[in-house]
């Protein structure tokens, strides 16, 4: 769970960058495994992969305390890992097994880990935004002093809750860092073709929320910007908004081969791999190639262990489908399922 701890702000550049690299390598290994498992029909449902976007959660979450909170999206595996989540519990959930994060009731789109302030992936675009605002409102009411990082994509800016959430957060000066992961695609539609006006930043600025943007494939740039913005948000200045430009390597879901995209566009994006870039920076800082290879190997081995554990894990019992619905008026287990 080292990743849940904020890195020392004065850590030598190489140490800090190496930690980011490790986080990104773990996300990459998880996404690669999820994609393979889907293709081999070893997991049910679909997964939304964040391959190519790893630098954003790694750089943002490195600036959060364990008690800080995040809200995530349907493309949320990376957010959970960067916030310090348990890859084994997440992999069990992808398999729908007992012992998974959600006991098999949620799957990839509903991963949550409240013990580390991960308030949930979400199957509905922009739905995490008002939840983040409410979490921040609660933090303010209770005097907790924590901040909430709210991840969402470029597609979310066309939904009403985007406007409602930013407006509210600004009116009440709530401790929220809005993090727009601009991967240029809203499901299978290019965002630019469906987003009027001068762009995402202008929308936030129009609501009085200051924005800043960065190259979302440069983890050091994400880290620097997020660090500055989280400090300001924590100091009580109200919400801030960062835009991290990136690209979604895969289709919208694992079932979507993304054939509607120009292959050159995809190839160019893959040539701008955040892991490759970080690796080059680390080599330049004098980190040995062997250490970098060992980092990747360790990540892959950790994920392979998680997959093996998930395949061994028991299935949930059918009667558990009726549990955790509600206290008052809950389904009647015994009568319907155990007879």
């Amino acid at each position, binding site marked *: 769970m080292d990743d849940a701890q904020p890195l020392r702000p004065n850590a030598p550049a190489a140490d800090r960058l190496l930690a980011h690299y490790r986080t990104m390598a773990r996300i990459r290994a998880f996404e690669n495994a999820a994609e393979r498992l889907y293709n081999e029909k070893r997991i049910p449902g679909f997964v939304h992969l964040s391959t190519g976007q790893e630098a954003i959660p790694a750089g943002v979450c490195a600036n959060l305390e364990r008690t800080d*909170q995040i*809200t995530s999206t349907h493309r949320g595996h990376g957010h959970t890992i960067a916030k310090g989540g348990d890859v084994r519990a997440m992999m069990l959930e992808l398999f729908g097994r007992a012992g*998974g*994060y*959600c*006991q*098999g*009731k*949620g799957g990839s789109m*509903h991963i*949550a*880990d*409240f013990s580390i302030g991960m*308030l*949930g992936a*979400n*199957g*509905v675009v922009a*739905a995490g*935004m*008002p*939840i*983040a*605002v*409410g*979490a*921040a*409102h*609660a*933090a*303010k*009411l*209770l005097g907790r002093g924590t901040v909430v990082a709210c991840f969402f994509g470029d597609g979310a800016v066309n939904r*009403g*809750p985007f406007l*409602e*959430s930013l*407006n*509210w957060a600004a*009116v009440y000066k709530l401790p929220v860092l809005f993090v727009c992961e601009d991967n240029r695609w809203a499901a299978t539609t290019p965002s630019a073709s469906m987003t009027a006006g001068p762009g995402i930043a202008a929308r936030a600025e129009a609501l009085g929320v200051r924005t800043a943007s960065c190259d979302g494939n440069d983890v050091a740039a994400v880290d620097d910007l997020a660090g500055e913005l989280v400090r300001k948000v924590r100091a009580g200045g109200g919400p801030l908004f960062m835009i991290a430009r990136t690209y979604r390597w895969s289709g919208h879901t694992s079932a979507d081969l993304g054939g509607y995209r120009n292959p050159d566009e995809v190839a160019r994006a893959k040539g701008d791999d955040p892991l490759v870039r970080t690796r080059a920076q680390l080599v330049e800082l004098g980190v040995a190639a062997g250490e970098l290879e060992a980092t990747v190997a360790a990540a892959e081995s950790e994920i392979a262990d998680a997959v093996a554990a998930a395949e061994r894990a028991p299935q949930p019992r059918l009667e558990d489908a009726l*549990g*955790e*619905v*509600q*206290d*008052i*008026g809950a*389904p009647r287990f015994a009568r319907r399922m155990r007879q």
Partner: protein
Amino acid sequence: MTLMSIVEASRRALADEMRRDPTVWALGEDLRRGGVFQQYKGLQAEFGPARVCDTPISEAAIMGAAVGAAMCGTRPVIETRYLDFTLCAADELVNQAAKARYMFGGQARVPIVVRQPTGLWMNCAAQHSQSLEAWWAHMPGLVALAPATPADSYAMLKAAIRCDDPVILLEHKELWGVTGEVEEGEPDARLGQARICRSGSDVTIVAWSATVAVCLEAAEALARDRIGAEVIDLRCIWPWDQETILASTAKTKRLLVVHEAVLAAGFGAEIAASVAEATGARVKRLGSPRIPVPFSPALEAAFRRTPEEVAAAALGLAS
């Protein structure tokens, strides 16, 4: 016991809970001036604007923020003026609040109270007059309460605030001024229990909210015809009290369910079908035609079940 109106009973219930538990807060539209129906009158002065929190007209954010705040250790009470406007927050209520506990495998609780001023009032027409209890009954994860008396209003709002589930509180707009005796303090809200308002052995009449009074009036008329109607105030839509209704129907062998909501796929259908399946009793439903609520009083009458109509239906069952 104190005599008070429903609006006063509900105001006191919220104030009592806010005094008792500092994590209880209210958020929503126009709280500054006490809410549309003055059900929050004086609360902002007592508890301050942080705990009686004015919001923009942003129902999705109100509901969504309440979900977030509820998952993070507070107990929000949500105000969106009219039931109809909570539909602007359908995703936040249905996809988030109702499902968070389940989807996250029991990690989360969403202890919110969604106050929904319901039903006909002052000829407010199609977007301010609906009765949608069947929607909430259909939605796993939600609790739906429909008080008809000041005592129930007081006890149920308090119980709703203490409940760890998301609770819809259907508060009929024509009942705000109804007065009755209220036991303040720690009354038992008896969630999930119906109340037999009047005993009878010939026909069981089930209703809730403003329709209970209509059925009680019908029972008076039926008594003059020597028909003993047992009138039951359902009180809670989900969970609903099958036991009491089955016991009553076992005695009367006839069930009439009456509601203001549209008849088609209304909650009366669930009750009637359950009773018919369990007992084979004769069942009948009364509800509104499947039309939007019209404006003109002459047209709005299509949504008002009258005592005469209820009595005639009961008589038809009993004969």
